[in-house]
């Protein structure tokens, strides 16, 4: 592991976005920052700003209203970046599947790297997803470099 990769692994800055969730998953995301789970020990910080974020945590099914916003935020996050779909709704749309005002899962709008199941998703699962996502950095970066080369 090069120094650059190590530094990237140790400093995932998070941007949390709610695309129409019932707030169940949001509460669990916030629980990550509490003393019990404390993701800051992995260097993760909630930046609330896509331009400074590495990891997009998206909760909830993507409503049609939210679609453009989500895409905008995704585009405003500089590469390399990770998208984690938190909870069943974000992964597939779950109960809102085929609903008239909902697009379905996050992957209908932007590419997703990690899906976290659960309604609501457990903080432990979220931490697991973060760790899994971080281990995908190398692959991600290689892909990014490849795209640039093309």
């Amino acid at each position, binding site marked *: 592991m090069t120094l650059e990769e190590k530094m990237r692994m140790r400093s995932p800055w998070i941007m949390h*976005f709610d695309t129409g969730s019932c707030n169940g998953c949001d509460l669990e995301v916030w629980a990550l920052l509490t003393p019990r789970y404390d993701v800051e020990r992995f260097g993760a910080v909630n930046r609330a*700003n*896509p*331009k400074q974020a590495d990891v997009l945590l998206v909760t909830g099914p993507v409503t049609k209203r939210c679609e*453009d*916003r*989500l895409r*905008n935020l995704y*585009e*405003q996050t500089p590469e390399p970046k990770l998208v984690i779909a938190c909870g069943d709704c974000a992964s597939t749309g779950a109960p809102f599947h085929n609903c008239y005002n909902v697009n379905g899962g996050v992957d209908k709008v932007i590419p997703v790297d990690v899906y976290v199941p659960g309604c609501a998703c457990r903080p432990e699962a979220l931490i697991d997803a973060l760790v899994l996502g971080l281990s995908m950095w190398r692959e991600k970066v290689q892909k990014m470099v490849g795209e640039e080369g093309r």
Partner: protein
Amino acid sequence: MSTGELLAVLLFLIPVIGAAVVLIVRRRGAIVWTVVFVSAILVLASIGLLAYMASTSFEVLAIGSEDLYPMGPAMIIIGVALAGLFIVIGWRIRSPFIVTVATINLVLDLGLESWTDFREAAPAVLIDNLALILILITSVVGSIIAIYALRYMRDDTHQPRFFAVTLLFLGSMNGAVLCNDMLWLVLFWDVTTLCSFLLIGHTGTEEAQKAARRALGITLAGATALIVGAMLAFYYYGTQSVQEVPLAGLDGLALMPLALMAVAAFTKSAQLPFQSWLLGAMVAPTPVSALLHSATMVNLGVYLLLRLSPSIVEATAINWLVALVGGASFLASSILAMTQSNAKRVLAWSTVGNLGLITMCVGVSTPLAITAGVILLFYHSISKALMFLSVGAAKESLGSEDIEDMQGMWVTMPFVSAAIFIGVVTIVLPPFGMFASKWIISSAATAFPLLIFLLGVGFASIVVYYFKWIGNILSAVPARQTGLRRDPLAPNYKWTLGALMVGAVGLSALIGPVVRFLVEPFIERYFTLPVGTNDLNLFTASGEFPVFIFLLLTGIIFVGLSLLIHPGAEEISKPYASGEDFVFESRGSYFFGEASVRQGIALSEGTGILLVALLLAIPLLLEVA
């Protein structure tokens, strides 16, 4: 006549002759050529005077009164005619105040002249380095403004009058600075008052008339103070020469002439509580504001203060009041400027503040402070002229002087924006000339610890109001995203603004020689110069300022970085707005409402009145005690 004398006479006579020519010929083409010709002569003559004085190693150049004695009766006639003109003006605009003051002035003037037999002051014309600095400012900066006005006023219907008065203004300003005889000083003082009255009211609107009347009233009242001061000076000091005011040993009522002349200077330099005329004068066309603020008028007041500063140094009873008036003007103007969104009003308050600093320097009255005052006076006029002329050029395209309307000007008018940027940077930031004087003031003010509190808050406020403005100018969507085109800029503006930009930056780089050749000879007449220089650095007893290194650094930083950085198109993204796409419209905060601003002005004027009253009362109190 020696070369120096000839040049001095030219500096005064040529603009006056030019004014007469403009009035007689009245054709646009002839006016243009006359103004350009007079400006060229003024610039050459002032630089020639500098070279001549340098060749005599800056000896004080005196022109005896015998040579000029034949002019005495002519001066009386002009003086009386002028005072009569003021009475007529007062009568026509139905202002009892102006009629009264003008009548008093006429009577006092005649009294002073018959009493002193108009031949006491010897020599009548005295040119030292302080006068030289003022002449350079008036002639060079004033000429640039006059040339700029040729374009700015091209559609005006009263051009002959405008340019005649402008040239007369420059001539009378040079005259006022050159003369050493108080009688003559009073005369030229009145001519500048008349010129400013005519120029401020030039557009003829109701608002302009009102502002002109106010300017006339306040500066005429100041002239009264000056005349009474001159009379008392003649009575107490037995001299009519400005430079022969005793340096020490003044006490009691003998301080009165100094106090009165200081008050006269406050009116001319728009210090509290007399600042309102300068603020009102903002309705005048931009070149007029530039003339009033940088090249002429307001400089006359601080010139008189600096001229008297060696005497004020010893007059410990009144110097702290002068310092307080200056300090209060600085603080109040800096805070009030934050509440203004009109660019010219911001600049007007900033002028009050900077002149306040100079006044404060005279009041602190250590050699260090007076040096700082002279340096500030010199650099302030260049930067302030640059600012005003840029605002005028911007107004021609934008149709507005409001700071909020200048948003994104960086893209549409890069040249004017750069001019405003350089103007602000040379006013506020190190390592430019004005900063050098602020640095000296900061260490000089420690002689008077109360003042450092005024300075601290004032400096920070200056940053706020200037950089809010710069922020608006910079706040632009890049051209390639909007397809906005650059507005064309007239060559006249390009050359005048360019000359001032080069002057502001170049003279900052040359601060070492400026201090050595312009400032030092004046200070050395009375004190030992407290600021040393080896052309690259400035030293004081308590610190050093590596000017050149920092100037180089600043140049490298701004020029280098903007040349180096060329981001690719793929790097440009949208602004973050929580994922929304929307057109962002901003409106800056100006912190206080109208009512609070009025209260603030009233409060500061009240403070000013109190301080001035105290200033005039102290000689009386000392006499009684």
